[in-house]
């Protein structure tokens, strides 16, 4: 077969997007068909009862239950934060005092002298589903959710962390190659979606969180940095629920890697526009990629815009632009120079069909066909 499909990411200046927004459990839909909605508008809502945390203060402090109210530093109805000192035992002659810091956050619902138990109830968990898109409601699923439609500029990243967020697009780097370093970030970017070029550094992410930047979109990130940011090693690529105070999206891959020019240019062209991003990624059957959605003002919708998906997927032939997506040449861009038919023995000893790539600086590399990805340039 002379044709090879590669997993494509959608990078489209204009596309009609239809998304389904639904509640986890049944609730109330707050909009009706035909209604125009804003990204941050709540379209459906429900309440989950707050979680209950029973704390056996008497056991934890080794005091009789009846002394629990005396040892508590809070009253019924008070709100306790995580780490706040909840109770202190009297100790013996002022020594051996024990303190107990709350492990949970919530309101003190009841204090029992009998069991020494304090019940903390977390806030009722409001579950709100926002529109995410600036669009029109085209379908209402009663008690569950809605389907929204809009004309958007739509860009899929390859990987992201953090959930949905909104903001103005702001490009921070001068080129698609430039790494996002802390010095490129400034106070004025608070609440915005900041676009970088190459890799986002650990320091930059930290500064961005401090500055209150809504989201960072870059070409790549170092896994070591990601681990430091998340505080754990990411195992399964199912993300979206991280609470790190920022949404991060990478468009190309891990390591030092440049953002595809097309993506960079498209984002740059929409600088200043309001966008919605979602870092949620799920790489397996039913794949989910992080997305950057920039609604297009209905006035500017070009009626004859072509549905453009050629950015990802396509036909592999001599002359097309490709990126190598596996070491040892990871991230290198070039053009297909030859597509030999016969399988070749690789250095690893495997037989595989290969292609030759001529890099931008004129070198010719031999790589397995599976290890390249088409890019439109």
């Amino acid at each position, binding site marked *: 077969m002379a044709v090879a499909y590669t997993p494509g990411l959608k990078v489209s200046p204009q596309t009609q997007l239809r998304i389904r927004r639904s509640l986890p459990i049944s609730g109330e839909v707050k909009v009706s068909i035909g209604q125009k909605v804003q990204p941050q508008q709540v379209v459906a809502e429900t309440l989950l009862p707050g979680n*209950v945390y*029973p704390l*056996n203060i008497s056991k934890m402090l080794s005091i009789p239950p009846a002394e629990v109210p005396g040892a508590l530093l809070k009253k019924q109805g008070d709100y306790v934060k995580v780490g706040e000192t909840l109770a202190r035992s009297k100790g013996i002659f002022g020594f051996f005092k024990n303190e107990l810091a709350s492990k949970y956050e919530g309101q003190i619902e009841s204090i029992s002298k009998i*069991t020494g*138990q304090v019940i903390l109830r977390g806030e009722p968990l409001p579950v709100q589903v926002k529109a995410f898109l600036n669009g029109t409601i085209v379908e209402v699923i009663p008690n569950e959710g809605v389907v929204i439609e809009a004309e958007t500029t739509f860009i899929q990243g390859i990987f992201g962390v953090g959930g949905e967020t909104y903001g103005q697009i702001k490009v921070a780097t001068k080129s698609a190659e430039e790494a996002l370093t802390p010095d490129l970030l400034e106070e004025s970017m608070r609440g915005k979606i900041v676009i970088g070029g190459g890799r986002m550094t650990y320091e930059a992410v930290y500064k961005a969180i401090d500055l209150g930047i809504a989201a960072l979109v870059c070409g790549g990130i170092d896994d070591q940095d990601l681990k430091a940011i998340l505080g754990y090693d990411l195992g399964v690529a199912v993300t979206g629920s991280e609470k790190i105070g920022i949404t991060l999206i990478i468009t190309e891959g891990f390591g030092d890697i440049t953002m595809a020019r097309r993506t960079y240019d498209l984002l740059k062209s929409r600088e200043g526009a309001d966008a919605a991003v979602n870092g949620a990624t799920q790489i397996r059957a039913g794949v989910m990629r992080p997305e950057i959605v920039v609604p297009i003002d209905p006035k500017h919708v070009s009626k004859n815009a072509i549905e453009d998906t050629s950015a990802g997927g396509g036909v592999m032939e001599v002359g097309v632009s490709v990126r190598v997506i596996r070491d040892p040449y990871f991230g290198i861009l070039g053009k297909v120079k030859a597509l030999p038919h016969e399988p070749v023995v690789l250095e690893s000893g495997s037989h595989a069909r290969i292609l030759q790539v001529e890099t931008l600086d004129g070198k010719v590399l031999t790589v397995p066909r599976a290890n390249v990805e088409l890019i439109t340039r």
Partner: protein
Amino acid sequence: MKQTMKTLVGSRWTWMMLCVVMAWNAVTVSAAPPAPPSDIQVKDYPLDDGTAVKVIFKRSPDDTGAEETNFTGYSIRTSSEVNGFFKEALEVKKAADATEAAEVVDARVTGLKEGEPVFVRVYAVGADDETSTPIQTAESITPVMAWFDFHQIRLLILVIVICSAVILFIELARRGYPMTVRKVAGLEAIDEAVGRATEMGKKNLFIPGVQDINDIQTVAGINILARISRTVADFDSEIEVPTCRSLVMTAASETIEGAFLAAGRPDAFDPKSIYYVTDEQFGYVAYVTGWMVREKPAACFYFGAFFAESLILAETGNSVGAIQIAGTAQPSQLPFFVAACDYTLIGEEMFAASAYLSGAPEELGSLKGQDMGKVVAAACILFGCFLAFISPDLMKLIFEETAL
């Protein structure tokens, strides 16, 4: 039957007669009595629990320290009345050699009643148990209880060593020092047993033994009950606890209520399932076995002090097809539990259970501390045996005699 009884009674009489006759013989065949000791002094023994007096007297002239002599030792006797019946309280051996013979005897007479005056007599005893005329104090002496009993000093040291080991390890555990616990299959099987009951829609039965709450085994049993009922609450199963003592019922009820609350299911707690049956051991057993046969519990737990009922309960449980987990520190009952139950906790394992189950660092630390106690015991035994082998006197000095 009646006749056998009579024979038995008859034979007892025969024996007594025989004894009397022999005693008479012994008295009649006596030789000349030895010379009495002299200069008796009796004092209250200091720093003790008030059950001893110190008796000091000069040795009898017959007590020369020579090996071959008619003299065997002294008999110290006490009575509450001046001329009352004097009962022997202590025997003192004759001097081993001449040097010892020159010294006074300083004896400690124990077994007295605190606060009750006694009179003391000392007899010299000859070869054929004939006694000299006694020497006696004119005044009675009253043993007094001191604030601190020095005889218990070893115990104090032990308590301090073990308690500090426990405290030390608890502290260490709190600071994250890793503590391991050996696996105890019986405890791991609790979930399995309760699970079985849940799946089969049957009840769990818990028997906290037949002793009152003042038995440490019952307390340990109640501790395990806390965990079991927590599992029961988690599994939404039911537990039945008939008790043999009213206080145990109260304790069990409190425990289960607490466990259900901790599991977040206070609503599922049924106080009626914990009840008192009777104090009468076998009445209780009859009830429990009857209940078992009727209700067919799928899981039976026996934790506490058990006596003759162990096998009856466990066999009945086995016959109704329950998973049974038992634990007791009654050595005589363990074999029965082992034979009839699925899992058995042996003695100490039951006491360690609560620490094992909770997995809380504090409790694990205390377990480790208790293990240190065992190390101390082992060391004492080894050291003591070594001393006993080398020098029994030194051993006695360190392990038995008062340090005063």
